[in-house]
């Protein structure tokens, strides 16, 4: 009888130990993968929204804008892409630029994300850095070759949410690319942000940022 209770006790201890290990390792894995999970969840949300054929173009754009504002650090990216000129600019021009830059992003990336929404999307690894994560992903479109897309993800201040601060496809970073373009343009405009604003607005109005259907 004693032997049996001892046996049961041992088994119980073993099970408890196993459960503990499982919890610990799972927990550890989750902490590392949280940024990856955030991205996967976002991608699922994007699929359901962007591949919905029933909604109008305006409605789709509205949804995408909401998605972009919630998950992308549009303000931070806008500040980054005009570099030192941000500091010199007037507040009203900054606000204007941020709004226009959001329009640029929507026009530029809504078609791309719609096209990529139902592509194969795999998070391959997450590399934690000092204050951000790099999430490596492989994106494969229907008839395209798989390409590596890197996401720079930061934890939002005072919350458990994450926010995307840059994307790099095949080594080309969104922020760096726009930054070299806009700061160079500002340099030739004598640092006048309001002039860049009106140039960008014109381009948005004529739909210059929307990628054409690839042939």
């Amino acid at each position, binding site marked *: 009888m004693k032997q049996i209770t001892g046996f049961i006790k041992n088994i119980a201890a073993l099970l408890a130990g196993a459960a503990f290990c499982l919890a610990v390792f799972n927990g550890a894995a989750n902490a590392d993968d949280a940024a990856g999970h955030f991205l996967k969840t976002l991608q699922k949300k994007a699929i359901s929204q962007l591949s919905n054929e029933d909604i109008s173009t305006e409605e789709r754009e509205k949804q995408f804008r909401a998605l972009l504002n919630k998950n992308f650090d549009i303000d931070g990216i806008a500040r980054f892409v005009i570099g*030192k000129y941000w500091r010199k600019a007037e507040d009203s021009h900054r606000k204007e630029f941020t709004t226009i830059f959001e329009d640029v992003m929507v026009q530029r990336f809504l078609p791309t994300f719609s096209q990529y929404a139902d592509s194969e999307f795999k998070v391959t690894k997450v590399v934690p850095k000092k204050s951000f994560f790099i999430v490596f992903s492989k994106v494969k479109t229907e008839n395209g070759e798989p390409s590596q897309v890197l996401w720079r993800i930061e934890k939002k201040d005072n919350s458990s949410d994450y926010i995307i601060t840059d994307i790099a496809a095949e*080594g080309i970073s969104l922020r760096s690319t726009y930054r070299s373009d806009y700061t*160079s343009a500002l340099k030739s405009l004598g640092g006048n942000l309001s002039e860049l604003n009106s140039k960008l607005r014109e381009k948005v109005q004529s739909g210059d940022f929307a990628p054409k259907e690839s042939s």
Partner: protein
Amino acid sequence: MTVETNDRRNVVGLGILSEINSRLIKRLVAFTAVAIFVTGCASKPNSTLQDEANASTDDQWAQTEGSTAVDEGDNDPIETVNRFIFAFNDAADTIIFRPVAEGYRFLVPSPIRDSVRNFLRNTYTPVILANDLLQGDLEKAENTFARFLINTIAGAGGLADVASQTGLEYHSEDFGQTMGTWGVPEGPYLVLPILGPSNVRDSVGLVGDALLDPLTYVAKTEVLIGRKVTDGIDKRSRNIETVDELKRDSVDFYARVRSLYHQKRENEINDGTTEPTLAPGLTDIFPEDDDQVSYAE
């Protein structure tokens, strides 16, 4: 009798070989000298830039600009000249290359265009193989060599890319990349007439690739030029929409291309597989010191 003619043939053959050999060696020596010279030169302007960036420590942005090579202004000391050549190239593209590329794409059916590309790629195999080896990448060298054998034999002299269907994907390497993996800095940004965006290292790389190519020593100049032109038209015909988009999308097309060229080359030197943040001597795609930048005034 027959032995004699054979002997003579051998002697003649050897003569040509040794002729090619001595030319090759001479050129390689000259080339190495140039490469060393350029390496020396290329590192200088970079360090001046670094100094300038460090000098203005009161400007936090300038500091980050110095440390993130992916940037505007930096690394383009002869911007005025570059912009001039860029404008010339752009005009030449609008008037000649884009229409020709478009005509080529319109007139020649896609399978034939693919065959042309496959054939051209196959002729560049020795260059790619040499660079694979110079980079010490035996796996890639093996891949390149296997592709050459399969495509030359089973792919009708390289017209069909049979190898890629067996999982041996094409990859391109050039001497500019090879020098990059050796740690040669890119040097100032350059726009070459007709050839387009480059930098000092990659310009030398172009010469290196020509010297590494056996066809340079064997084929007629017309053939070599013809191959380059066809290659150029083929490449242009494959990115008509991309370039159009880029032009519409950017405010300063020149600056956009300069940044893209730099980032693309870095990625190619990394081969897109190495973790960018770990590769030694290369710019991080997402630099860590971004975080030190304060947005506050």
